[in-house]
């Protein structure tokens, strides 16, 4: 489809322009400008979904401009069925982040919203990049606003958490830089499509896989490089946690799908088994650690490790249901965990505690809140009819096709997931009212309801009609698996 204007570029850089306007105009207008910008980006993105040809696996809405001739790098933007859902998620999450920060952010307001918008630019740009150089630029650009979001507006040990986050992710991504440069040197190009058609030697593939997986594994995060996540998610302000859980973690999974699978297929098959084992460990170990948490935010953070274990498990099963499930699971995790962090943030704004033991009896004090929390807790535990069920089901069926014990570990993880989510809900919502909450207006106001409703709707829509996302994926995943040379393994769903 041909459009009159470079839609993806406009979507990517509109938030940056909004950030510049915010910095110029000052604190008072900041949140309104941020809300307007993020809503405009959503509106601009509508033709993207309407005009997208689901039957094609090719890149669509492609824009190419020469950029750096000396390194044979172009500025290339485009979307396929895999990147489109992530762009959708990024635009929606950005709006909700502005909504969630409306009253929570009281100082350095303009810098906050500017950082949020720069992060939106990096997210959309990353998912729309069609070459590795641009991908890397947005990948690294993302670090800066998130570093500031955690470190400036975060909780008590925000500085420790922000530095830890930065050093972990930077250590991973600089190895990707070396891999990128080695790839450029070996092939002379960084274009994803051209690279996917180039057959690299197995040795080179193996080394490149190590370099790239260092970056993606830290971001996902995979066991055992996950330790930055609980600190970063817990200390970040609500919007920061939502961006971290909703989008930043997905960048790692997306990188695996966009780079590792199509460009390094031999290495992926070579390393698939250890990766599957690490994923299974992440699922089960993450779930057990989650069970032991006493801090609401930390609990949700650790649950992310378990849930993201499902994603890498699905990807490395290398069959259709596994990979489609992994992508769906990433979208679902973004929706559900984003929503859970929003819920935690909303109640924290009123009670100023994240200690689970101090909560209880919210069902009568805050019935609306309790309803939303119920929806999202059930969704997170993989309740049928809600979104995560579909993704986890696809991944588990993919895992059983690959290796029986992987399926067992995954089912075990789901069972533990139900336990910790429902136990959390039980401890927070059920039971006696707490005297210290008497007199507090605990229930949600209209703005907060409006922030949560879109995510609840998405959870229901995807739960009842998963085709709404899977329809976009089908052609591209098929192409991806054929390109990865493992099309034979893709059984009928």
């Amino acid at each position, binding site marked *: 489809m041909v459009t009159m204007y470079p839609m993806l570029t406009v979507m990517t850089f509109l938030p940056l322009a909004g950030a510049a306007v915010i910095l110029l105009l000052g604190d008072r207008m900041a949140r309104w400008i941020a809300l307007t910008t993020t809503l405009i980006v959503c509106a601009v993105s509508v033709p993207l979904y309407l005009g997208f040809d689901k039957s094609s696996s090719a890149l669509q809405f492609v824009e190419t401009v020469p*950029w*750096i*001739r*000396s*390194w044979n790098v172009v500025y290339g933007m485009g979307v396929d069925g895999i990147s489109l859902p992530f762009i959708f998620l990024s635009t929606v999450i950005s709006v909700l982040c502005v909504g969630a920060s409306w009253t929570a952010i009281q100082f*350095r307001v303009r*810098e906050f919203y500017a950082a949020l918008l720069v992060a939106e630019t990096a997210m959309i740009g990353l998912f729309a990049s069609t070459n590795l150089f641009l991908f*890397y*630029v947005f990948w*690294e*650009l993302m*670090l*800066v606003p998130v*570093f*500031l979001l955690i*470190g*400036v507006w975060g909780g008590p040990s*925000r*500085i420790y958490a*922000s*530095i830890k986050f*930065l*050093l972990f992710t*930077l*250590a991973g991504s*600089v*190895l990707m*830089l*070396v891999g990128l*440069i*080695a790839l*450029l*040197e070996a092939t002379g190009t960084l274009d994803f499509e051209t690279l996917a058609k180039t057959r690299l030697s197995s040795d080179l593939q193996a080394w490149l896989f190590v370099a790239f997986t260092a970056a993606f594994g830290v971001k996902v995060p995979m066991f055992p490089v996950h330790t930055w996540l609980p600190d970063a998610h817990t200390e970040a302000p609500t919007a920061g946690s939502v961006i971290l859980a909703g989008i930043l973690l997905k960048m790692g999974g997306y990188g695996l799908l966009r780079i590792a699978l199509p460009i390094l297929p031999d290495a992926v098959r070579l390393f698939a088994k250890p990766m599957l084992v690490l994923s299974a460990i992440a699922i089960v170990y993450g779930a057990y650690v989650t069970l032991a948490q006493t801090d609401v935010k930390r609990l949700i953070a650790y649950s992310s490790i378990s849930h993201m274990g499902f994603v890498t498990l699905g990807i490395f099963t290398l069959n259709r249901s596994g990979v489609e499930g992994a992508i769906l699971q990433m979208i679902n995790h973004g929706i559900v965990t984003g929503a859970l962090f929003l819920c935690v943030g909303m109640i924290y704004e009123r009670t100023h505690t994240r200690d689970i033991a101090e909560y209880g009896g919210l069902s009568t004090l805050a019935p609306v809140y309790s309803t939303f929390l119920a929806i999202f807790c059930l969704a997170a535990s993989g309740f049928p009819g809600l979104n995560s069920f579909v993704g986890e089901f696809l991944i588990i069926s993919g895992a059983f096709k690959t290796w029986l014990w992987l399926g067992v570990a995954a089912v075990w993880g789901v069972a533990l997931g139900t336990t910790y989510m429902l136990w959390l809900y039980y401890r927070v919502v059920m039971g006696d009212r707490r005297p210290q909450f008497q007199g507090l207006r605990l229930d949600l106001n209209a703005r907060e309801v409006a922030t949560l409703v879109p995510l609840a709707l998405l959870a229901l829509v995807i739960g009842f009609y998963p085709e709404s996302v899977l329809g976009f994926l089908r052609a591209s995943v098929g192409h991806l698996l054929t390109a990865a040379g493992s099309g034979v393994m893709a059984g009928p769903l």
Partner: protein
Amino acid sequence: MSDLVFLLPELVLAGTALVLILIARHVSRAQAVAVPVVVAAMAAIVSGWAFTPEASRVGFGGTIASDGYARFFKVLFAATLALAALLSVKHVDTERVPPAEYYALLLLASTGMMLAASAVDLLILYLGLELMILCAYVLVGITVNRPIANEAAIKYFLLGSFASALLLYGIALVYGVTGATDFAAIASAVSERNLTRHPFMLAGLALMAGGLAFKIAAVPFHAWAPDVYQGAIAPVAAFLAAGSKAASLAALVRVCLAAFASEQRIWSEMLAGLAVLSMIVGSLLAIPQTSMKRLLAYSSIAHVGYALLGLIPGTPDGAAATITYAFIYSFMTLGAFGVVIALGERGEDLLAYRGLAATAPVTAALMFLFLLSLTGIPPTAGFAAKFGVILSAVRGGHVVLAVVAVMCSVVSAFFYLRVAVMMYMMEPQGAAPARVPGAVAAALAVAAFVTIVGGMFPDTFAAWTVPPSSRNIHTEISAGR
């Protein structure tokens, strides 16, 4: 006579310096001198740009080249001079430095840098570097009332003289073996008489490498840099960190490629050792620093290591990456020092940066930009520069060096971004800093502009970065004889 056109930028600067010395007694305020110095620097840029012929030529009896390489560095040094002149205005007045002498020394040092970059003869190269460093000794100690400055100047002088002696001794040995000091003749003597493994040749190379390594402050010849940068007033430290380092790097690149191209395997091993040590030691020792100037000194040591990565494979592309690195490094370092200068006395203490984003948001944002660039985070120029040198290293098969380099930049992220942590994430200390003087603000704007444009459009400077060519000069010399 036509050869003099080659030296037009040098003549402009030296002439201005002489005029300043003549009128020194009548000048009392820095601003009165800074403006003509900036104008002279602009004139040097224009004359260097306009009067350098497209084709490479050699003049003055085969000792000075006029080529794209020399032109590139002359423009860089003139720009460094202009920025340093602007950054100096406040300090020269408050520290009661005699302005005309100060600026004359800056001009003469820049003249020396330009000579060093265009020299194709070891003696002219030595002359240029000595002119630069002699002025630098005085500039470091120019605040006579500050004991720390005197100490720094004496240290710099003693160690610097020793390094110059090393360099000269190396030149003498090379002359003894080859019977020549000009690069083309050395290159042809080495290849014709097969002197590659001659023991005196190797000793000469090692001594020259040591002398030049001191001047670029590569580990283990780096120990002077932190003390000197700390003792000198901040604008002098900025000028040394950017200009003198780039000039010595320019000389090193040309010597390696034009004179000793056939010894590439030997010097690339030496340079690889220097590069690895500089990156690791520079990054690690920057971590515990509490003085901003010392931190930037160790950062400059680490950056020399990155810059050398491009030179190690000995290819023209790699050399181009190295000189691009020198260019971008100069601007981001001038920018970082510019913020230190803009903050005045408190700018030199790391802890004084706490809460700066609240009290001086624009200054803090600029510092953040320069720090990101020094770390090498896209889309800043520092990333593009680092990408270029690492690409050359990988092309040359030095993947291990590339991995060391990126790992060191993670370490460096820790100490650079700790400053950002202090600025953005801690409570303000004391009153808001005074207004930034206009001259300093102008210099910061230029540095920020280069840092952003160089990152967004890395090709911008690519067309200007011409690696030194040994072949052209060689053929022209032999044709002329």
